[in-house]
């Protein structure tokens, strides 16, 4: 006997998502900052005042100059120089490239691996599910930093190894998230309908199931990028990450550690700020996305 009121359909889900996302000025700010940072990183070779990897340009006499001073080659070092005479601003730009590349790259690969496994586990069920989930549990119960340390101790240093280590550490989050939403979606009628239509499994998985599992995946993915960047920085800081020839922000900070107590703070400080701003921007975005996509807070 009860009938429910029918709400007028005025906006698509995507449009609503965008408008709710933009309700938080912080999140929008984060997004803008991230875009700027990404652009800086991509365009670094063209806009940096100096190429910090080119040994020919460096002059050790330019070492440890204060921010704002002018170096021997006439360039103004807005953020100072490090102990080798490298311009900090350029170093940071190039460092951002490495950090972003490793962070985003590893997150994407981990997402691919993790999401596929998660989908498989949810769809296949039974023993496949149990095995995959045991692996996920094992991976997740082990502290990330330790796992990464062990893997790098095993593989040795280098950008590629760092990416592998990050992927191994991260895939489990994606797998669990996707499996969770896939399990819910799997029981819905449209999947039954697709199965009845005898669509090939791969098609069901990727064209029907996956799009509906996307919202939480996007949130996890965004947060994971920030985590990956932070983790890579920490590993490099501890001396177990990227090699010295292509320093990421973490390594730049490590270089400056010893000079901190003698007051030459800028060698660690500015790369730190760059790292910080990047991570915070990404987290602000991810945070708002999570709030917007959380079904339990909607009344």
């Amino acid at each position: 006997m009860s009938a429910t009121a029918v709400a007028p359909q005025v906006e698509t889900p995507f449009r609503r998502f965008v408008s709710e996302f933009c309700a938080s000025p912080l999140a929008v700010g984060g997004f803008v900052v991230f875009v700027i940072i990404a652009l800086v990183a991509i365009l670094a070779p063209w806009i940096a005042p100096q190429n910090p990897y080119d040994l020919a340009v460096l002059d050790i006499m330019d070492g440890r100059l204060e921010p704002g001073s002018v170096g021997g080659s006439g360039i103004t070092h807005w953020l100072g120089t490090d102990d080798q005479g490298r311009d900090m601003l350029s170093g940071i730009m190039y460092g951002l490239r490495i950090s972003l590349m490793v962070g985003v790259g590893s997150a994407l690969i981990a997402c691919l691996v993790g999401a596929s496994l998660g989908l498989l586990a949810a769809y296949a069920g039974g023993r496949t599910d149990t095995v995959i989930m045991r692996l996920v549990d094992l991976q997740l119960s082990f502290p990330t930093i330790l796992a990464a340390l062990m893997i790098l101790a095993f593989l040795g240093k280098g950008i590629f190894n760092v990416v592998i280590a990050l992927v191994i550490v991260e895939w489990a989050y994606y797998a669990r998230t996707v499996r969770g939403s896939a399990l819910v979606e799997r029981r819905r009628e449209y999947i039954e309908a697709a199965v009845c239509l005898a669509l090939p499994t791969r098609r069901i998985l990727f064209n029907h199931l996956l799009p509906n599992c996307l919202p939480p995946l996007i949130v996890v993915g965004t947060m994971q990028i920030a985590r990956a960047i932070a983790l890579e920085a920490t590993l490099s800081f501890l001396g177990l990450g990227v090699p010295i020839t292509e320093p990421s922000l973490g390594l730049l900070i490590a270089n400056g550690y010893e000079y901190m107590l003698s007051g030459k703070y800028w060698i660690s400080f500015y790369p730190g700020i760059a790292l910080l701003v990047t991570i915070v921007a990404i987290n602000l975005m991810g945070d708002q996305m999570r709030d917007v996509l959380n079904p339990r807070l909607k009344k």
Partner: protein
Amino acid sequence: MNTLEVRGLSTHFFTRAGVVKAVEDVSFSVGRGKVMGLVGESGSGKTVTGFSVIGLVDAPGRIVSGEILFKGRNLVGMGEEELRDLRGNRIAMIFQDPMMTLNPVLRVDTQMIETVQAHQRVDRETARQRARDALGMVGIPSPDERLKSYPHQFSGGMRQRVAIAIALLHQPDLIIADEPTTALDVTIQGQILAEVQKLAANTGTSLIWITHDLSVVAGLADDIAVMYAGRIVEQGSVDQVLDVPFHPYTHGLIGSVPSRNKRGVPLRQIPGTTPSLMSLPPGCAFKTRCERADAACETMPALAEIATGRFARCVHPHIETLPA
């Protein structure tokens, strides 16, 4: 003096998507010891009316106009402290889903004792005694053991009895029951209805019984108010309204009750669906589903007294006998 007199109550919700006029120009009164049945479907505004009376309308909603006279005192605009003094004490409320109304991590005695102590300075032991007695009154066996238990150890019907017991702890003048038996099965429902009726008769408590189920109201209430899209569309004593409904909506509701229909003949239904409260059409809200609608329905009809003590918000009321 009536225990409760509501005059021109309007409660609106100010959401980002627009203003939802959940309750619009609602007026009714409940005398001492009387039972008022507030009937309507989901979204008709009956629950919000109940919350408005007890003062628990939360943001983004608020009472925008009207008066709620409880024993002569206007509750609208009253300070929070004064309202809190009345809640659970002189005005009590019973919710729909007993599963969620009792806090799952607190013991039943804690939840009952705190209600007692919130309004009276008594020690724990006295409060516990009162709780025991209240449980006994609603027919819960071995109350001492039950007091020490947690809500999830009770069945649905028992939990609702506990909620009723809590409502009765201070012998309130008014109890607002919001669909308290909807979540229970029919036999339990019958028991609880009988209990409540007995208690109300004994203690002189006034009762507002909010429901969508006409059969419940038929046996229990003295008066009935039918709500649709936020307004009262028909009002009167329960026998008269259910016997000879004036408003087409009430007419349709009664006609669609399964027991009233002949076997083999398709169930009578009211065509169409309730309009959204955010975009109500001008004029009578029911006109889109009413077979009697015409140009005269483009303006909102007033709640007119069609017969003594019988009100209907319609310009084409059914002033004939209901076919058998």
